[in-house]
């Protein structure tokens, strides 16, 4: 039978009824249940493990400094129910008083929560009790203790500093440490993996990232207004930026109760899919390049270029479309652009087909991807992986299907799923998805409805909260917004897909060779600038243990030919 939100609520009521203090529904498919501090983690775990809801997913954990409003801090565990027509987002919220900022950690039982809890500890000072990993995640190592940037009293311009220190995992006996990055081939962004290597085989790996942090969430709270944030949201990531701006706008629209005109929803859908095509072709190209197959790279990007030109004609720029605004979109698709788009798509299809044939006939490339970086289904669930990474491991989840947004409810498309869980499977998922995207765009262009592009914005009443979600090329992307006063948001929490996928990478790396590492890391299509909006990290000292200063200096500045 169908998993409606009410049914889920019933289940929770049955088990935790006496702890529930309050319950409200920001949206038809969203509920926020306020619970006792003691019960909230248990309830979350119950939903994730025992309740038996289909494909439960810890979508995000939002910590907010609500002292100006309620004099308390708050945490919301957002659990989503996916697949089999279950469309529900359950937010389990609890308030913590300033002088007792401790809450039971759920990481020991659900590893997927690892980063969320560490992030909240870093940014708000809410301590997850008996969390397995006491190290910092987000804050830079040269950032002083007991200063929490997301607390309201912190000014977004101040830069306190102390001498940095970071502790990496102890290498096992007889292993060599191969620092991977901050500048390396697998991604054109700074990030840092430490591979613990025997010969060429990787026995363990550790991650230290959060290099790309630009303080976006804080900027949004402090400097920018509602209608300026879509543009900074777009610059969270230059590959999947439109996904972010859409998610943000949807979140605000949900909170404000604006219903977006149909035409706008369709145009958003079209652009989202154009972006997906762009991103997937990009990834395929990079994968070829990492496997030393540059011809594949060149051809993939040659085809991609058509898509970029189309985007440029439709929105005015190849990236950062600057199309979203709260309540709709800013540019229309006139008749001539429509026909232009259709022509481009037909060309794209032809060339893409040739390319895929060429790729699948290149044995040496297939050989590199096959059986490498395997992520079994249960691991994929445990880490709450999303998008192609999850679908490559046989998880049948896709936000577009499970929680239809924009115009996806009215369009028809398939969700490709592969069971092998290796790099090849992830590649296949992406390759198939490009076909689906083309098909979606064609449909959307065909039934593009009339009417206006923008809805009127009514009065904004502050402190309404809402969640919004969309399927980025890399997976489920969740934004949480709490409206504020004075034309500014009170809290805007971004959870990019890579945030869920990355912790699973060390799992994938174990047992494979240095030669595989770039391909494996790239296989989740990591997007660090998405993940690392929060703060900057300095890994120097972590390195010093292994190398001399000069040596380390040099190691930490490499970057691949690309």
């Amino acid at each position, binding site marked *: 039978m169908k998993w409606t939100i009410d049914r889920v609520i019933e289940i929770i009521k049955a088990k935790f009824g006496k702890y529930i203090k309050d319950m409200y529904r920001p949206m038809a498919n969203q509920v926020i249940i306020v619970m006792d501090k003691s019960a909230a983690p248990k309830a979350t775990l119950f939903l994730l493990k025992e309740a038996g809801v289909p494909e439960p997913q810890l979508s995000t954990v939002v910590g907010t400094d609500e002292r100006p409003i309620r004099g308390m801090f708050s945490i919301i565990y957002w659990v989503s129910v996916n697949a089999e027509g279950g469309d529900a987002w359950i937010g389990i919220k609890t308030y913590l008083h300033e002088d007792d900022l401790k809450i039971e950690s759920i990481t020991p039982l659900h590893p997927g929560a690892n980063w969320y809890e560490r992030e909240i500890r870093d940014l708000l000072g809410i301590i997850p009790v008996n969390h397995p990993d006491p190290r910092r995640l987000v804050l830079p190592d040269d950032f002083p203790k007991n200063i929490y940037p997301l607390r309201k009293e912190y000014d977004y311009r101040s830069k306190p500093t102390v001498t940095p220190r970071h502790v990496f995992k102890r290498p096992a006996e007889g292993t*060599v*440490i*191969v*620092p991977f990055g901050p500048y*390396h*081939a697998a991604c054109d962004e700074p990030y840092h993996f430490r591979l613990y290597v025997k010969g*060429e085989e990787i026995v363990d790996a550790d991650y230290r990232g959060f290099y790309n942090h630009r303080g976006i969430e804080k900027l949004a709270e402090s400097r920018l207004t509602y209608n300026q944030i879509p543009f900074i949201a777009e610059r969270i990531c230059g590959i999947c930026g439109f996904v972010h701006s859409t998610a943000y706008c949807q979140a605000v629209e949900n909170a404000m109760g604006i219903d977006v005109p149909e035409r706008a929803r369709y145009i958003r859908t079209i652009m989202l899919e154009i972006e997906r095509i762009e991103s997937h072709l990009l990834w395929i190209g990079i994968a*070829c*390049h*990492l*496997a*030393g*197959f*540059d*011809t*594949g790279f*060149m*051809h993939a990007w*040659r085809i991609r270029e058509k898509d970029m030109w189309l985007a440029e004609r439709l929105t005015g720029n190849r990236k950062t479309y600057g199309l979203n605004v709260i309540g709709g979109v800013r540019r229309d698709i006139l008749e001539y652009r429509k026909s232009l788009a259709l022509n481009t798509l037909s060309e794209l299809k032809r060339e893409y087909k040739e390319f895929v044939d060429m790729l699948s006939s*290149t044995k*040496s*490339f297939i*050989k*590199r991807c096959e059986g490498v970086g395997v992520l079994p289904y249960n691991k994929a669930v445990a880490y709450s992986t999303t998008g192609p990474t999850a679908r490559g491991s046989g998880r049948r989840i896709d936000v577009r299907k499970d929680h239809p947004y924009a115009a996806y409810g009215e369009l028809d498309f398939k969700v490709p799923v592969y069971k092998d869980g290796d790099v090849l499977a992830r590649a296949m998922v992406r390759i198939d998805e490009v076909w689906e995207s083309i098909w979606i765009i064609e449909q959307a262009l065909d039934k593009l409805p009339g009417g206006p592009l923008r809805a009127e914005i009514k009065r904004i009443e502050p402190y309404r909260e809402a969640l919004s979600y969309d399927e980025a090329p890399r997976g489920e992307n969740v934004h949480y917004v709490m409206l504020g006063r004075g034309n500014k948001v009170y809290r805007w929490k971004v959870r990019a897909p890579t945030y869920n996928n990355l912790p699973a990478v060390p799992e994938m790396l174990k047992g494979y*060779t*240095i*030669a*595989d*590492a*770039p391909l494996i890391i790239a296989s989740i299509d990591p997007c660090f600038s998405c993940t690392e909006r929060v703060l900057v990290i300095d890994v120097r000292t972590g390195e010093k243990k292994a*190398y*001399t200063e*000069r*040596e380390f200096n*040099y*190691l930490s500045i*490499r970057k*691949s*030919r*690309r």
Partner: protein
Amino acid sequence: MIMRLVSLCVAIVIALVFPLIFDGIGRKIKARIQYRMGPPIFQTIYDVSKLLKTPYLVSGGLMFILAPCIAFASALASITMLPVGGISPISFSYDIFVFLYVEAMVSISLMLAGFSVQNIYANAGANRETMLILSTEPILGVALAMLALLTKRLSIEGIAYTIGVIDYRLLPLVLIAYMMLVYIVYIEGGFIPFDLTEAETEILGGPLCEYSGRLLALFKWALLIKRFTLIWLLASLITIPSVAPAFSRINTVFSYILVLLFQLFIALVLYCSIVANEAFTARYKIDHVISLNKRVFLVSIIFFIVIAVLTL
């Protein structure tokens, strides 16, 4: 004697200039396969000359500086043992062993360079290089040994000339030896899928990643020359038996030039075909290569024994 001196000069000139031009041509071909305009043919020359102008940073011991020079010298030396225009500048009996040794020297110095710096990637590259030469050099040795057995000569020039007049019943075996050689040329030349030592995307240029400026130029040049040498070996083993005897009847100078042109032509053809193939393959992993080499080596040994039995 004079001819030998002349051909020495010619060999040096060819060795210095043509590898760069060939590389340029290779890049152009690749570019065209990828629908690109591609760099000018002389691009590699520009690159090297620029590198020669730029200053270099030393981040290793004495070996760090010596290695490129050794590599360069031995690469140059190795080509002088091959017939240029039908006459090897330096030729004596047993020079085949010297050739093998000098040939290996380039790889060895690359190894040494890799180990001379305290850099995980350089070391990884050096490791790979070690595995590669340990597994490939024997095959090269065996292949040449086969030819030596078949022709009863131990100098490359000698081998080249005698193959032309060899008993036709042995030709199949000669062909097999040639196939071995092609395989070796492909691997030792460091073409994709065997460019593991400098795999940019995995270990960022391996041993070369610490080098800069002049030293880098020398190293790159040396590696290109080595590539060229191997192909040249193949080319001359094909050209000389087929055309040299015919021309040499006419007149030495004339035949010298003709044979030279033929060699160049054949070399170019070989190079282009290899590059074209290169463009359509992804890089192998070191374990793939090693296992492949093992198999080839076994096969070659078997044939070697067969030849030994037949000829002795």
